[in-house]
């Protein structure tokens, strides 16, 4: 059993602002973290490994060289080895070019696999597109918003509990497949000192465009079908009235008056 977890390093987005003068992102002083939904995907992989210890787990990411830190975090959590796809030629990729590069790397660098796990979305772009695009390129089925996994039929099939609009459903498919992972019961674990030390001895392989059998014009910005033409700050709503609520009864009056004046009661 081999599980590949595709992960992304993201900025701590609460801190990302736009410079009103230049209209560009202010990234200075913004910390980078492993995308939380990717942490849940890693945790899901490790849960399978705890049940089936012979499982091999690989974390893969496409990003700048600094994204190594996010892969180190995966290794500290317990992933066996990591692959970083870093090359100037990958820069500026949209979801399509990203999915194509990851899919090609999975094909050529890893070859055989049983399961691909991804986070349901990254908190910076929030597109949720790369997972389904990878599964389409690799020709495997996908199940999105998974919160629980169960291997069946001697690991030939998988049952996934997934979130849907009205609740949960259980879906079954044959392996290999791709599952995108939502939060569910997963928690972000804290690595022990020993795990952090162990991670330093694990393999973290660097892969460049030359290692992939893919034309350079299909990579990065050149290979992207979408182009960002403008970024701008969101419109800000005008602030309404602020009322001191230290007297609960007065606050209750204030609230009911507003509801009444706007005909909600």
């Amino acid at each position, binding site marked *: 059993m081999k599980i590949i977890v595709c992960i992304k390093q993201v900025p701590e*987005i609460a801190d990302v602002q736009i410079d009103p003068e230049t209209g560009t*992102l202010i990234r200075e002083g913004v910390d980078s973290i492993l995308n939380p939904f990717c942490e849940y995907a890693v945790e899901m992989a490790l849960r399978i490994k705890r049940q089936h210890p012979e499982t091999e787990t690989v974390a893969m990411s496409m990003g700048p060289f600094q994204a190594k830190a996010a892969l180190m975090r995966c290794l500290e959590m317990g992933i066996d080895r990591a692959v970083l796809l870093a090359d100037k030629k990958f820069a500026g990729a949209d*979801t*399509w070019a990203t999915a194509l590069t990851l899919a090609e790397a999975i094909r050529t660098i890893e070859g055989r696999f049983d399961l691909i796990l991804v986070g349901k979305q990254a908190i910076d772009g929030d597109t949720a597109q790369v997972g389904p695009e990878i599964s389409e390129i690799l020709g495997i089925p996908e199940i999105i918003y998974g919160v629980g996994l169960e291997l069946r039929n001697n690991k030939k099939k998988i049952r996934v509990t997934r979130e849907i609009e009205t609740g949960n459903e259980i879906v079954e498919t044959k392996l290999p497949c791709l599952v995108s992972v939502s939060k569910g019961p997963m928690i972000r674990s804290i690595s022990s000192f020993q795990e952090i030390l162990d991670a330093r001895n694990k393999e973290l392989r660097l892969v460049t465009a030359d290692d992939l059998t893919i034309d350079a014009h299909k990579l990065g910005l050149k290979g992207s*079908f979408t182009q960002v033409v403008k970024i701008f700050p969101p419109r800000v709503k005008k602030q309404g009235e602020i009322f001191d609520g230290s007297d*609960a*009864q007065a606050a*209750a009056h204030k*609230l009911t008056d507003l509801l009444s004046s706007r005909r909600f009661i």
Partner: protein
Amino acid sequence: MLTVDRDKCTGCNICEKVCPFGAIVVVDGKAQVQDTCTLCGACVTSCPVGALSIERGQIPLDELGAFSGVFVWGECEHRAETLIPKKVVKELLSQGRLLADKLRQDLTVITLGDHRLTGLDSLFAHGADRVIRCQHKLLGRYEPDSFTLVISAIITKYMPAVFLFGATPNGRELAPRIAARLRLGLTADCTGLDIDEDGQLVQTRPAFGGNIMASIVSPFTRPQMATVRPNVFPLAQPNKPKKIRIQDFQISLSKALIRTKKVATHRLEADGEASIEEADVIVSAGRGCANKENLSLIQELASALGGVVAGSRAIVELDWLPHTKQVGQSGLTVAPQLYIAIGISGAIQHLVGISSARTIIAINNDPEAPIFKVADLGIVGDALEILPAFIRELKNRSSAPK
């Protein structure tokens, strides 16, 4: 075009069986492609030896003009034994109408379903010029495999310039599958759509949790594909439709195409309970509610106002409420007339989920909480003290003579 690697092909006949258009026949132990091929890709994913491939080159720039029309996915939901278009389809039509008029092109809805498919006439009242309907017993329930292949085939046949999907859970799975199959640019979860002077679709969406907005185009691929956030675009008033024009798209599907199988469903919402996406009044709980027991106060307030309960991501992650009640960037976008936020600080990811709310009231003990920046009325104080007084006051007023 679809090519067969004759060295790999074993003549197993699977592609012949799964092709929805009867476009493959096996002759002398090798697959052969007929003119009826729509490049839907069904055979490629079913071939056990990888002998089939579709080479999809980029469209030369001077051929982009051959693509015409605004298409909308008419996602349906089950209601009382019928399959009817979701509310988001009408929102897409309201906005799609404006785009189609700017382009001077037609607006078409694509609906897939089985014999229960109904309510299509209302789509014309909301602006559609045409409905393309594909009915098959295997299309009664959304499945990514079958829906990807049918819509890919429709796109290849009709060549629209724009294709919009609701950014619902299904739409956000289906659109990237189709985009990857047909090699198309796709923009996720758009909150603004326009046509520029070159006739391109300009897709605007929040990024970095809503801290910035980005406008995006797909200059080289057609159709230009976007998923569109529900509850953002206003519904246009329905008109008396000019003409009902429904065309049927014929297809033959086999079960072998659908690789995922549903085993069970657990509803977390009580029957008849309004979904927070459609509620007019929402009382929403955040971390400031301190403990799960206090949710009964929230429920009581919601009931007094005829509304429903929702919560912030923090509350859902604590498992106080199911994920179906989560408001915000990684949850649902709501558009109530009245949104009351109790103990919610108002992280940007939460605020983008309530930007369509008409009236926002916030109660929070932190005067610096960002929620106050968007609230029509902000009460700085202890929600656990104010709520009981507020509920009492509401009950007094409703029992008092008017």
